[in-house]
């Protein structure tokens, strides 16, 4: 059934009346996503576009519409609370698109979520899409097509690029997930690899990484141990100039991991096919 969301997913949009929220809610609805509710603390009782009920809180939306997933279009200042609100209301999947959330806020939110059953995608991510079933976020609906490739990516627009390149060559996708590039993510490569490995409709996996951190190295180790489906990868930033580092701590912690070379080596050693260019995926997969 693909991963994370499908046509049965019932979505509440947090911040449905805002500029981005309203625009992308319409896009999600146009794609066929089941948008059952929206929230705005001051507009409970109204309707969005004359059809989607607006509630003051997510919990009321859950109680009255059975919403089980949330997409948050909320400014950085309010986004941590929006995530907590959905988790508190028992929402199983929260997609937070918001960019520029202070990282320590996300550290706190993520530590809290560990004690709940709520999965967060993001923040600072494009969300996810299961072709022809549900779109939770902003991945353009017209670039995807149904198929058997699961895509997980740290990047936003690069994800579209890769999906577009695959679709262009007739290679369809099971689910495409943009996990976001922030230092603290609700869901990481390994979570998605586990889900794709277990998903009947996914036959191949595409992983899009980028320089910095060690998420790709950890993913490589996980793939070696647990993933039997073929994995393909691209690492963005091979030609990026090395960043400046402050203090000794970063160097002590990260050592040489974080470079494109380190990531590509680790993935190759784990049996992953690493391509030089996103356009090459379609060729190696099909």
């Amino acid at each position, binding site marked *: 059934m693909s991963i994370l969301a499908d046509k049965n997913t019932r979505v509440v949009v947090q911040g449905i009346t805002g500029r981005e929220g309203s625009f992308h809610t319409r896009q999600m609805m146009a794609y066929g996503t089941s948008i059952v509710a929206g929230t705005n603390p001051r507009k409970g009782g109204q309707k969005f576009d004359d059809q989607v009920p607006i509630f003051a809180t997510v919990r009321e939306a859950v109680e009255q519409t059975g919403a089980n997933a949330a997409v948050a279009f909320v400014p950085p*200042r309010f986004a941590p609370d929006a995530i907590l609100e959905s988790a508190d209301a028992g929402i199983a999947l929260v997609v937070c698109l918001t960019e520029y959330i202070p990282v320590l806020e996300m550290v706190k939110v993520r530590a809290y979520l560990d004690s709940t059953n709520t999965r967060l995608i993001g923040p600072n991510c494009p969300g996810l899409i299961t072709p022809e079933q549900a779109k939770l976020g902003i991945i*353009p609906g017209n670039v995807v097509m149904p198929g058997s490739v699961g895509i997980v990516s740290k990047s936003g*627009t*690069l994800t*579209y690029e890769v999906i577009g390149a695959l679709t262009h060559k007739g290679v369809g996708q099971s689910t495409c997930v943009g996990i976001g590039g922030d230092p603290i993510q609700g869901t990481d490569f390994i979570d998605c690899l586990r889900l794709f490995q277990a998903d009947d409709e996914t036959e191949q996996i595409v992983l899009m990484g980028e320089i910095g951190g060690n998420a790709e190295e950890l993913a490589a180790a996980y793939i070696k141990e647990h993933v039997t489906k073929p994995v393909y990868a691209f690492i963005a930033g091979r030609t990026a100039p090395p960043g400046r580092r402050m203090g000794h701590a970063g160097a002590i912690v990260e050592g040489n991991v974080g470079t494109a070379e380190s990531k590509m080596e680790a993935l190759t050693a784990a049996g992953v096919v690493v391509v030089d260019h996103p356009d090459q995926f379609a060729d190696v997969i099909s």
Partner: protein
Amino acid sequence: MNLIEYHAKRLFGQHGIPVPAGELAYTPEEARTIAERLGGGTVVVKAQVLTGGRGKAGGVKLAHNPDEAEARARDILGLDIKGFTVHKVLVDPGVVIQDEIYLAILLDRAARRPMIMASAAGGMDIEAVAEETPEKIIKVHINPQIGVRTFHSTYIASRMALPQELWGQFHNVVTNLYDCFISNDASLTEINPLIIDGDGNLMAVDGKMTIDDNGLARHPELAELREADAETASEREARKHGINFIQLDGNIGCMVNGAGLAMTSMDVIKLFGGSPANFLDIGGGAKAEQVTAALRLILSDKNVEAVLINIFGGITRGDEVARGIIAALDQVDTKVPFVVRLAGTNATEGRAILADQNMTTAVTLSEAAQKAIAAAKGRGV
């Protein structure tokens, strides 16, 4: 955003960590005045620049009296240290050092937690210690839901074999440094060395601190501490418009939405034999105004011989980008050829707006990169 030693230590002090009572001097005369105010005895004059290796570069000097302080400040002010010119020095009172400890708190992305790092082998060579004797580096993750507890600092103190009479002080330093880290939205706070002074007390003699850029919006007082020379004029201009920009030395200007796609665009340009002039990410949901500013930045670089615009709309919309391009071309007179690749949200609308602009268009990124390289060569010939 990185803070200079002086500002880092001032914040440490505000959070209850003992620090020397030094002050900033912008001129040799000010250095003398500060040395006098500190009692006229030995002081350390330290270059305040956002780079390491000050000591080896002659940026840290001892002075035994105000005359010497003035002379040493004169030596140091104006020095070039790894490309940074010294505009100010910190004049700190001299201290007796019995022992040097390393103590830092930073965000460990992999563990998703703040991490305390400490070592009894503090001082200049801490990276070598980490390399050669990693067991001497003690690491403790802090779950923000419980914060720093006594058992955390006790573990570190015990592992470092710190004398028990200092455990109470050490706990306070660790707790206060954690407070300082959390309440300032830091991604790094580092004390090296944390010394045991002549009276057997702990004191933070040098400090570094990095603030999470996303946290600056709620710390306007910290945002003002940004060093003027921490970024170029173009980078500053970019930041004001919410654009991520890094100047490089190639000839193909790039304007892309999203850091990953921007890096990939550079990677693909290189793959096909070209050379990017910059990294530029207009961010998510950019408006026409940002696009205009981005193009002005790119075109102000005289090395640029072609511009590659690669926009895959999601939250960013193709029509907004197209309007920004038009506005920029109204403001800047340029002969540089443009290669434009618009895809995703409102790409069709965007392409319509640019239809009569005589720009080269492309469907895929490969195509766009190759056309930009060709355009730059054509112009360069």
